[in-house]
């Protein structure tokens, strides 16, 4: 056990944990930031997807020591401080994407990463980027539309 400094949404917390402790459980269970969800624990469903220094990562399979000195952004940290939603969040509302909503924090964080890399994603780009995130309610058609809407609004 070591003291790990974990920075989530701009707030740094010192947490007692082994170097190889999965970041997800520290963020959720110790720091109390619950936007990233447990869906599989092994990096195959995408429900916990968050950003590390602006790029999508999977906290459930990322050792806390690998986040040292980095900035973790979860779904809670995506909107502006004044509450203005990120264009992807707004597009999710405009297209009424969510059903149960459980996978959507991960879907949104993955979509933000996609649009940052590819400002005008094609259907094939969306398939390739989003196939790593499971949605059991089957909101995929609306996710696709929301990504295109958000991308257009950001160009």
């Amino acid at each position, binding site marked *: 056990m070591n003291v790990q400094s974990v920075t989530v949404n701009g707030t740094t917390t010192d947490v007692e944990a082994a170097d190889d402790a999965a970041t997800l459980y520290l963020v959720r269970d110790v720091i109390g930031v619950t936007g990233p969800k447990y869906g599989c624990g*092994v990096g195959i469903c995408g429900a916990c997807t968050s950003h590390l220094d602006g790029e999508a990562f999977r906290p459930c399979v990322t050792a806390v020591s690998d986040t040292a000195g980095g900035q973790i952004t979860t779904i809670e940290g995506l909107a502006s401080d004044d509450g203005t939603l990120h264009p992807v969040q707004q597009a999710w509302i405009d297209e009424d994407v969510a059903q149960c909503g459980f996978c959507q924090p991960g879907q949104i964080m993955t979509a933000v990463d996609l649009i940052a890399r590819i400002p005008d994603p094609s259907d094939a780009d969306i398939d390739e980027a989003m196939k790593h995130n499971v949605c059991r*309610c089957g909101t995929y058609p609306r996710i696709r539309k929301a990504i295109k809407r958000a991308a257009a609004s950001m160009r």
Partner: protein
Amino acid sequence: MTTIETPPTNDEIGRKGVSRRGFLAAMVAAPALTAVVMSESATASAGLLDGLGGAAGDVAGDLVPDLGFPETADIVDLGDLIILADFPARYNLLVEVTPQNRVRFEVPRLEKGQGISTACASILADELGARLSDLDVSLSDARLDRPFTITGSSSAVRSLWEPIRTVAAGLRARLITAAANEWGANPFDLVARDTMVVHPDGRTLTFGELSAAAAQITQISTNAELKDPSEYTIIGQPQGRIDAHDIVTGKAEYALDLQVPDADPAVIARAPEIGGTVASFDSSTASAMPGVVAIVQVSSGVAVVARTYGEAFAARDALDITWNGGPLSNTSDADILDTLKAADVEPLPTGGLLTKVVEDTFEFPYMAHAPMEVMSAVADVRADSAEVWYGSQSPVIALQTVAARLGLPESAVTLHVPRSGGAFGRRLFYEPVVEAAEISQAVGQPVKLMWSRNDDTRHGRFRPMSINRVRARIAGSNVLTFDHRMTAAELDLGHGFGEMLSAAAGQALPAGFSQTAFHTTVSVPYDFGAATQLLTEVPIPVPTGSWRSIYSGTVITANEIMVDRMATRLRTDPVAFRRDKLDDERAVAVLDKVAAEGQWGRSMPAGHAQGVAIHVEYRSVCAYLVEIDTTGPESRVTKVTVAVDVGRAINPKGLEAQMQGVVSDAITAVLRAGNRVDDGRVREGSYGDFLWARMNHTPFEVNVHVMPPTTGEPGGAGELGLPTCSAAIVNAYSRATGESPNKFPIERPSIPDYTEVTG
């Protein structure tokens, strides 16, 4: 709290002719206007039953005891029975108008993504005359005064449609009366809209300003009639989900997101085999691991309580447990299939001079629900009481089971219902909350139990494996007989359905609730001569549960595939054949709609094709027209056109979401995935080997056409599209490939690598 009786104002409530006589709407005497409408007496509810007439009234008297004949679902369906069971308590709704001009409403059902909180809020806001944005909607705790609260059989909106409007109309009348008293105005000149009462001269008072006075009113001076549908401004209009902002900002709280003081993470080490048990265990290594709080044996395994789930999982892995096998040791799914085949002996009508016989036998695998949110529950058990949190589709029996397990009276247990991350029938059962309570009691502190994803799949519940034999006999263009024999692993309906149906029938039903459920959910909406459908169930010790349908997911899928195969045999177009044979006008209308909107019959390249199917259930009908591309290594559904008639769509946008959502269930169930049993263990464990449809398996376009109101009453929607889309996919696949698949899933793709984060 004291209650006062609402004086009767109108004999007739609403357009359905429900008699108000005997309806004691008790109001809580509170500073703010609050309706907590209490149960009527048994006599009063019997009177209401008489007043209802039609199907529900008949059910109690006649139909339930006689549920042995096919086509029952045309007359009374399972949703009717659920509504009937809940009928005496249906006005037990909590609606409160606060001085801050908020309308607080507790939905007595589980929101699990299907959008009922938005739909119910829309009904309430419209009837009350409030803005939707002024409502604060939460989910009701389990209430012992609503003993048959079940979120299932697509019945939530159906069952709450009339009660919400009736309660809202009563509240609106009080608010208008209060405003009329305040202004000395004629109440019939006043209207309620935008969460205020408006005077013709432009004066307004908000509901919040009127709430205290309205709460004191003993005599309402205006009518409390339900609005005419022409007056609706919210019902029938597309509404975004009321919780959308919470979801996209991460504020929406599921069970394990709740900050229950001192509740530590808990996991359970479970047997490798279904039904396996602990023989012995050594926890000395695990106990010494970082973060471990407690390790205790419970009925389903060995529980580990720790500071974090990561530490709990690590300690669980370090336990040294010797397991006893379960009842399926040395048994595989192939053996189970053989068992079903041996029981599949119900005869089908044979031959006949000059008749063509079209027949096929379909095999459906076990299928876990795999909702995104794994099974989880929070429990805080004290010496004399318990507080538990579980997203339950059957909260009252869940509470009762927890109380019995803990040895507490039911009144000492509170069960809160948080939103859940999907359910699909899984949360009709309540193992997690019973386990969480058991652990909390054993370790003497609050715990939050989470099943791992592998736990969730391998120790979950499954749509029963089934064999579906269908035979049609045709003479010329006339279908003489259409017969379906389903032989299936027994479906567990032991989550209150039995008690509920007994209550609805007014007597204890004999064994075999399944037959009732079967005959009240599946029907043949075609003129197919003598149609019979029979169910044979075989007890198999694999836990089962309804899976986004009771039986329709397999029965109707098979039937609609057979309809295409009959058309093929008669060299008739599948849409033309259905049009010719359908005996349901609404079904013809949705079929015509998808044929027109989806360009049925358009030319497509080799290996591509269209397929169609229809389904009638729960007072609703829908049609799916699917396009598929079978030329790649995995077939891909490329486009789906849907037409749906639910009688009256409360929120067309939410209805569209339900019809879209089943597309990925259907793709998964008929093309991609199903569960297998090896030596008593479920083979698939997580999304890495249980291959649910993802974005790259989903059509680029799903166009849903919501039909204008027909019956005027909302029908069921959540399960409606599943068998329809499933059959349409198989029909498209058959037309594209020339094959006639009858074992599902048709394709079992090789396991891809989903571990990279992004492309």
